[in-house]
């Protein structure tokens, strides 16, 4: 009787274990299946883009070929012609200048604003913080008409410096909001310890808040960078000449003439335009995660 009792639980445990393993296997199988479907769905366009960029125009014109494979051999002609015979490099340079300036302006403005709104108690600070965030909810497609009037009156129409002026209206509200959240999560005793140690407000910001809130700062920078790099509506509305145009609008307008689409160069241009964000994301993601685990929470 006792031996039966002793073996029964052991048998039961094996039974339970086996069904758990079965369940787990099915769960893994199902999740991998959906992940693969998801990956195929989302990686298909970039793959298509790469394949098309490496094809010759002749191959693309032949309807008999399968668009997903290269038959006539890989060619870099599309890239060569794009870089040599179009204004692509000018667009790239303009976009890079605008993005760097906008990210710098945005970070300076939002960090200072977030520090004041999130940390210094003054009358109306929480109303102001909410108000700043609410301005972000107004779509830029609505704003570009009044913005046009303003940029024209300043004389920055058809100049990429006008973009440097205008993009922060899109990036600052959201970045300030992110930063306020991060600054508020820093315990108040840290301020007080710094005050007693002899830090002024600026020193507190530079030596304590910014290092401790670095993940938040990087998140905000990634956001500002993305908005700047990929902006379409404002450059479309405010920039006319080729030498002032940015990547997004420039690639599309200069490579589509009437109903002739230069697909090869369009894809090559899209690939080159997507490269910097990819590289920067990959680079900053490591730093972001390292920042999260390096004791950036209260010590």
């Amino acid at each position, binding site marked *: 009787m006792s031996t039966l009792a002793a073996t029964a639980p052991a048998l039961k445990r094996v039974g339970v274990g086996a069904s758990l393993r079965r369940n787990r296997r099915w769960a893994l199988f199902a999740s991998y299946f959906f992940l693969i479907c998801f990956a195929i769905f989302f990686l298909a366009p970039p793959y298509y883009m790469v394949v098309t960029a490496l094809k010759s125009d002749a191959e693309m014109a032949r309807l008999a070929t399968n668009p997903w494979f290269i038959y006539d051999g890989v060619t870099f002609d599309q890239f060569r012609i794009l870089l040599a015979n179009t204004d692509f490099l000018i667009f790239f340079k303009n976009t890079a200048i605008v993005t760097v300036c906008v990210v710098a302006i945005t970070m300076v403005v939002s960090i200072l604003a977030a520090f004041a709104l999130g940390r210094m108690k003054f009358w109306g600070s929480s109303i102001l913080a909410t108000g700043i965030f609410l301005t972000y909810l107004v779509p830029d497609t609505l704003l570009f008409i009044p913005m046009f009037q303003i940029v024209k009156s300043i004389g920055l129409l058809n100049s990429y410096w006008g973009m440097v002026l205008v993009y922060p209206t899109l990036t600052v509200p959201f970045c300030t909001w992110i930063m306020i959240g991060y600054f508020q999560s820093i*315990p108040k*005793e*840290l301020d007080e310890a710094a005050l007693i140690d*002899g830090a002024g407000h600026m020193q507190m910001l530079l030596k304590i808040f910014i290092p401790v809130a*670095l993940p938040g700062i990087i998140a905000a920078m990634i956001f500002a960078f993305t908005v700047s790099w990929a902006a379409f509506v404002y450059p479309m509305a405010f920039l006319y000449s080729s030498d002032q145009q940015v990547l997004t609008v420039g690639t599309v307008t200069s490579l589509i003439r009437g109903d002739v689409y230069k697909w090869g160069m369009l894809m090559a241009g899209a690939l080159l335009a997507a490269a910097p964000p990819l590289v920067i994301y990959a680079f900053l993601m490591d730093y972001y995660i390292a920042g999260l685990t390096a*004791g*950036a929470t209260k010590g």
Partner: protein
Amino acid sequence: MADVALRNVVKKYDDVVAVSSINLDIPNQEFVVLVGPSGCGKSTTLRMIAGLEEITDGEISIGGAVVNDLPPKDRDIAMVFQNYALYPHMTVAENMSFGLKLRKFPKAEIKARVDHAAGILDITELLARRPKQLSGGQRQRVAMGRAIVRNPKVFLFDEPLSNLDAKLRVQMRTEIKRVHQKVKTTTVYVTHDQVEAMTLADRVVVMNGGKIEQIGTPNDLYHHPKTRFVAGFIGSPAMNFVPAKLETNGTGLKVRLSDTLSFHVPESRTTRYRGHVGKDLLFGLRPEHITETRGRENGVGQEFPVTLDVVEPMGMETMVFFKVDGTEVCGRVEPNAAKGSGETMQLRANLDQMHLIDPATNLVL
């Protein structure tokens, strides 16, 4: 090193009075503990000394100079917080030297001070670590080190041991006392734990409801509490309070606790208490003064029988609980003296240590 003086200091938050008219003189190098229950105003008072809270009214001076309008960094004080407040992105050495770097001290002196403080606190091998790699006790020592390197006029401690477990708390208490003996600086220490207050302080300030109840040495407060609050707050377990009536007993006095129990008032006290005969009073006696009959007499005492309710063996002694006219009373007896719940035993009250409190004024007579 300097003295601290508070004159009629008041703190109001809108209409709520958190601290009402505190007067306190702390001479140079004294270790003063502000103790009291939550919400009594002790932390607010400490923060006003630090400059982290505005003073509504009154004057605070450090080293003879009034500091009401000075920011914290100009008051030459250093503070140790309850949750350490260490800078998480800096190493221990950088944490300790941050204040000195801001004040533009030369590198060599910063290093010397940091090494000296690390030596006192036994954290020299931790100097390259970050706060998240330290235990609670180590972090607290680093927080103390950050205060020591500044060589301030006053050390301020805001419940520094509250975040530590009981065993570590006892260890760190001794550390703090040892550090104070080495680094003789005026210290103001806030805690809600009366054991910490008694063991660490040169003088204790008992606060309640924004007011100071009593200031005195630990011994003073233990043996001569002035108010009911202080009598009940100091000492663990707390003093027993039993409603009683003061009656005459021939030429002397006696305190009647119940129909069956009354104690003779010691000769030395009869003059003091005579004016209160017939009043309803509160009889106070600490558990350590209600013991088993010991054979050797210890002061003026009286034996009385009790029926034990609950018996709690603590190892080095046993706590016995019994009822006197409905009020639960606690006594402390030798480990093997008490038999068990429900048993009767003979106890002895050391009446030299008794207190009588007037419930109308809550003052000890």
